[in-house]
């Protein structure tokens, strides 16, 4: 049936492990007694708190205000009383956090109203609503969506791509979103197309999700300007640059932005959030989280309020097994290992993955045997072994010559290395050193 699969050069085929949750319907998660909502859940400046301790807030009420253009608003995910505003350890580090005691009423804020009629909205209106709603990229990058909706004038956008690749192993939140809410995903794309004044939209989905492809196709069969692109199942197919290449054949030039070659990418979950913000006026206060891995007793896809602790979420999934050893925010390839279960689910938390002791056994790095598997796997066409070696030898100039700054940190090189060398770790170290030298 399938003719040509769209793809990119390089990449790996890890064990996807999606069967743990791919057929499980999204369940509504229990709302906790206390939510801890970080003011940094996005790339850019932290939001400024606009409530005080003791204030009563309603669900959906803005509690943090975007600080500048590249920043995002933050909203209360429950109704209740603000009991503290303090710095807390969260997924990416210690950040200011608003703690709300849930009164259990889920009383909606008065400001929330749906707009419904897309035809009545201008580009500027759409941008404003998305900005108001605090929507950021929900695939994990958490770049504020309103910024993407207002590209610089000199960048002529002609293509919008929805990213439904979900190439990270284990994660199925995008998959289930497409299967269960295809009309919202597609409607969100129409909003984005209108907002950017673009004709053509694509939805890229890996071919390991036939039910998602079918669901989206059913919704799109009358949409002339929306094309569903079936992608080869290969990591990192959902990497922004790889996805653009696979779908349009265009290559984002080194150190440039996708908008400079006319492309803007949104995650399918983000698209759905945008649809809900326009239709219902609901800001981004909950998201689908895949709770999975051998370390969780009952893996499932949960709709979780922002600010719910990992501990609560895991508890709802039957808790941890005895051999649980590593808790990761996100997928196994690019996710961040957490030292505590008190961290909160944020706008970018696509998954909580728990690996067991035997899955994370320490692997002793061996000398590089120059097998060149990392060269074949690197989706950026780099020589990871050389980049890592030069960093290890302290030769940062050479590392720059080997294009260390083009690395997208997908982790293919570390994954594929038979000598179990921490190649990406060396590359990250090198990048950090180079950045600090530049300052």
């Amino acid at each position: 049936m399938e003719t040509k699969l769209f793809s990119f050069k390089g990449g790996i085929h890890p064990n996807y492990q999606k069967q743990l949750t791919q057929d499980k319907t999204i369940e509504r998660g229990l709302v906790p007694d206390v939510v801890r909502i970080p003011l940094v859940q996005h790339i850019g400046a932290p939001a400024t708190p606009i409530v005080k301790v003791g204030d009563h807030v309603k669900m959906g009420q803005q509690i943090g205000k975007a600080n500048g253009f590249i920043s995002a608003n933050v909203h209360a995910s429950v109704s209740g009383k603000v009991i503290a505003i303090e710095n807390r350890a969260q997924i990416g580090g210690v950040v200011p956090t608003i703690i709300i005691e849930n009164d259990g009423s889920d009383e909606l804020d008065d400001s929330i109203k749906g707009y419904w009629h897309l035809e009545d909205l201008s580009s500027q209106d759409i941008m404003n609503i998305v900005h108001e709603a605090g929507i950021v990229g929900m695939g994990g990058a958490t770049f504020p969506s309103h910024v993407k909706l207002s590209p610089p004038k000199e960048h002529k956008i002609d293509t919008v791509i929805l990213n439904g690749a979900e190439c990270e192993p284990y994660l199925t939140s995008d998959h289930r979103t497409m299967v269960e809410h295809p009309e919202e995903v597609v409607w969100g794309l129409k909003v984005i197309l209108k907002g950017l004044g673009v004709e053509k939209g694509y939805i890229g989905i890996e071919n390991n999700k036939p039910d998602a492809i079918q669901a989206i196709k059913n919704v799109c069969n009358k949409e002339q300007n929306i094309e569903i692109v079936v992608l080869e199942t290969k990591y990192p197919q959902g990497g922004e640059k790889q996805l653009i290449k696979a779908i349009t054949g265009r290559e984002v030039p080194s150190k440039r932005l996708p908008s400079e070659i006319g492309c803007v990418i949104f995650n399918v979950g983000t698209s759905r959030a945008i649809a809900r913000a326009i239709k219902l006026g609901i800001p981004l206060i909950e998201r689908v989280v895949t709770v999975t891995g051998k370390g969780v007793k009952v893996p499932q896809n949960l709709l979780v309020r922002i600010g719910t602790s990992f501990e609560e979420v895991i508890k709802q999934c039957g808790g941890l097994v005895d051999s649980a050893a590593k808790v990761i925010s996100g997928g196994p390839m690019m996710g961040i290992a957490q030292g505590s279960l008190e961290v909160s689910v944020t706008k970018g938390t696509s998954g909580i993955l728990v690996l067991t002791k035997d899955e994370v056994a320490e692997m002793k790095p061996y000398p590089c045997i120059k097998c060149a598997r990392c060269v074949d796997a690197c989706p950026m066409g780099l020589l990871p072994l050389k980049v890592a070696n030069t960093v290890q030898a302290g030769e940062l100039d050479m590392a720059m010559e080997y294009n260390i700054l083009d690395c997208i940190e997908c982790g293919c090189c570390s994954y594929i290395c038979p000598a179990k060398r921490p190649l990406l770790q060396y590359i990250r170290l090198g990048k950090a050193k180079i950045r600090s030298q530049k300052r």
Partner: protein
Amino acid sequence: MINNRLIVSSSPHVRSEETVSSVMLDVVIALTPALIAAAYFFGFRALLVTAVTVLSCVVAEYAWQKVNHQPITINDWSAVVTGILLAFNLPATVPLWMPVVGGFFAIIVVKQFFGGLGQNFMNPALAARAFLLASWPVEMTKWVDPFSNLPLLKTPDVISSATPLAILKGTEAAGQTMPSITSLFLGNIGGTIGETSVLMLLIGGLWLIYRKVISWRIPVTFIATVGVLTFIFGKDGFFTGNAIYHVLSGGLMLGAFFMATDYASSPVTPKGQIIMGIGAGIITSVIRLYGGYPEGVSYSILLMNIAAPLIDRYTTPVKFGEVKVRA
């Protein structure tokens, strides 16, 4: 409290199942068919020479690492691979002390002196073979016909028979008739222990490509280059060469699939690997057609080994995004 025992480390959090040992073991598996063919054609003595070579390599590695207080890595199978490859480059008739000398030379001088696994700039087995050939040329070129009933422990006292390439070259063995192509393909000819059976080497080579241990780039370009050049520059004028004989004999299969693809001493870039294959093919053809030796595979690989770092340097792949920015 679970929080106290959570492991925190840098992504990626999963790794492929492949290890250095599993890769090396795959090479050993790939060499097994040819070893069986060697035992069949040259008898148990071929197996004995191989065993002695492998043991020497492993002992040499162990001894070096022990003496230098380095971690012992003999269970990664890399010394075993070197041992089998070196044995495959020896005639079944060699006195048994020779593989011992060769094994120690390969592991200590060529591999460990330069930093051990992954650091050697030449293929250890080939460098050791070149060393033995230069030191004991008579013993190293005493070829016997298959099924010669070699004595097991005593050094066989036999009259050397000619290899197909020597006959082709028409030097030392003028007048002898060429074996049939079938014999060449199956390995029913004189030669070193592991080079004769094209069929068995092909099976092993394809296994390595199938298992993605090696890429097609070096072996295919190497063999194709030899085929094309030996056909074009034939003895009786252009386009008259006996390409089939050249391709099927003289260890080309062994060299192309198993020796030129040695990780440490061959280029890591895709383009570099193609240059390696073509370069080795050119040098092999030049030596065979115009040089003093009937055979050129080993020297061609060694020469290209030396060029490998330079080739890597000048064949850095075009990175993603190395395109013109749209105006």
